[in-house]
């Protein structure tokens, strides 16, 4: 694509983004920005944050995590245990901020341990192992007895301040966007992309792949854990079935795939698109029942025809018409790797400088 078109597109995108951001910032000042709208938007922001953190392992490193919601649940439960007086082991109620910090650290620790085990697996084995861990931890919470109140549920004293939490989540998500933008430009980020494209090659060129994978996995877990902790505090009640929900993983995977795997803007665009689609379907009484079917069809279509998501479409990298014009047999040709030339060049450049040093 011509660089001018690209620049124009980038400008338009940035402009729209800024406009949206200003809108989000001033929303609580208006009538429309009532508590229920704000809570819905806070949940949307939290799911965007989850998608961004999923994208760090799933998109950058190429390790597709099918149990990512486990970190959300663990973070939520840590805060629940610390802040509720229904836990027999820790009956005293902790103040909020230390509880959130401990939740993030604890989730990071568990993610680190789990990552050390599962990040050695490759391909589908990793995905399935993570799905296993998800179910595993949910059941563990149910039988933990005194610590988690036997899966009956924990109540946190409600202190409702929707605008505050709306802003906190908004700022946190902005920090995450910056973090993932910045990460892609660091040597560490480039090494992750290199792992995705050619893990053995990356290892031969001197990247400590296991260490880097575990590091990004831990970071991703900690972020989702913190989001879960914040959600638990606002929701004021949690039990295993609402803290560990498959739908959170589904949303993160789907939003990221829709937007564009391994891109910075992808998870945001995808989740926002999904959100709008869902709202549209929900307002139509006759379509209420079908919204998940539509979502499923959409996911299938995107995966088959738009493997780079909406971002790929915007960048004009996927020539939709070509797919129909030129029907290549699926059994010929090599695997269609999800490559991003720019990123590859970047990664290669980084590696070269490393080697020449």
């Amino acid at each position: 694509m011509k660089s001018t078109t690209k620049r124009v597109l980038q400008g338009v995108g940035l402009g729209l983004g800024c406009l949206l951001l200003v809108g989000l910032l001033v929303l609580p000042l208006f009538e429309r920005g009532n508590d229920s709208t704000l809570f819905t938007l806070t949940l949307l922001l939290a799911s965007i944050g989850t998608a961004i953190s999923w994208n760090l392992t799933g998109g950058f490193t190429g390790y597709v995590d099918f149990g990512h919601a486990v970190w959300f649940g663990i973070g939520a439960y840590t805060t629940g245990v610390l802040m509720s007086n229904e836990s027999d082991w820790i009956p005293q109620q902790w103040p909020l901020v230390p509880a959130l910090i401990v939740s993030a650290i604890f989730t990071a620790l568990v993610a680190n341990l789990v990552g050390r085990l599962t990040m050695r697996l490759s391909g589908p084995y990793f995905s399935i192992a993570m799905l296993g861990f998800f179910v595993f931890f949910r059941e563990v919470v149910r039988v933990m007895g005194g610590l988690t109140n036997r899966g009956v549920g924990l109540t946190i004293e409600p202190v409702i301040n929707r605008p505050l939490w709306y802003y906190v989540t908004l700022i946190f998500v902005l920090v995450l966007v910056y973090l993932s933008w910045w990460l892609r430009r660091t040597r560490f980020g480039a090494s992750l992309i290199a792992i995705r494209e050619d893990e053995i090659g990356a290892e031969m060129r001197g990247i400590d792949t296991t260490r880097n994978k575990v590091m990004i996995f831990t970071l991703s877990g900690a972020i989702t854990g913190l989001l879960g902790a914040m959600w638990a505090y606002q929701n004021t009640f949690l039990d295993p079935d609402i803290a560990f929900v498959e739908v959170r993983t589904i949303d993160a995977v789907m939003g990221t795939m829709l937007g564009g795997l391994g891109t910075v803007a992808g998870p945001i665009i995808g989740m926002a698109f999904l959100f709008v689609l869902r709202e549209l379907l929900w307002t139509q009484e006759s379509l209420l029942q079908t919204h998940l079917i539509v979502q499923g069809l959409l996911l299938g279509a995107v995966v088959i025809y738009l493997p780079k998501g909406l971002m790929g479409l915007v960048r004009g990298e996927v020539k939709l018409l070509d797919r129909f014009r030129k029907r290549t047999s699926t059994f010929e040709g090599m695997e269609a790797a999800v490559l991003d030339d720019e990123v590859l060049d970047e990664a290669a450049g980084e590696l070269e400088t490393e080697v020449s040093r």
Partner: protein
Amino acid sequence: MDTLVQALINGIAVGGFLTLMVLGFSIIWGVMGVINFAHGEFIMVGAYMAWFARSEWGIEPLYSALPIFMIMFVVGFILQKLVVNKVIDRPHLVSLLVMFAASIIMSNSVKLIAGADFRRVNSDIQKGFWELGDLATIPRKHTVVLAVALVVLIALQTFLQRTRLGKSIRAAAQNRQAAQIVGIDIKWVYAFTFALCIGITAMSGALTSTIIPVFPFMGPPWALRAFVITALSGLGSVKGTLGAAMFLGILESLVATYAPGNSGSQLAVITAFGLLVLTLVVRPQGLFGGLRPVESGAH
């Protein structure tokens, strides 16, 4: 002693229907390299067909199983041609996500058509118990499924080992390029394998509809057990599937029987997934060795 015998019998009974449920999943993965994330939903569809046949026409699941097998064989064939074929050569993430989308579509469509209520299919044949002296009782409904499972297992093993098509399937699993070079029509082999496996899976759903509760979202726990068993047995191994399914069935049954308090069912799940993770980490190629040479694992 009595409880131990009863727990073992229950375990074997569960292992029997798990074997039938998992075979299709294991072979699709082994031969085509596609992880059928919608596996549980095919079980669900089969179960719903059996429920419909029973409540509308009064046909026993044991008899409706064969027509269901044939219908779903055709459905599987079409599905393979239309969808799976498109993604089979793409990275595993793509096929995983497509099957994932299929599972969402299927479970929600069934919910739309038949409602979200729990159903249980009554059967006159699969009813009651045999008493084994004072020792234990053998549930008749499980025994029927176990018998069918063994028949299918032997038939499948013979088919894969002896017939020309079965040999082509095994060849395609071992090395696709080489199989193509020696003139095996790989597209036909893949379509047939997928159709056969979907048929068997739906049939297992039909037969077990008398044992397990039937509802639109029943799929995922069974799909996860399919992962566990396949991880234990190795991809596409018929004999391994029997062994691993029995192992998991007996293990879950023992844990559920001897667990303290009423945490039995949760501890059984924890055991199953602990086992899954442990096997994947320690021995990703499975315990029995399967159809497909292991190309990915720990490194």
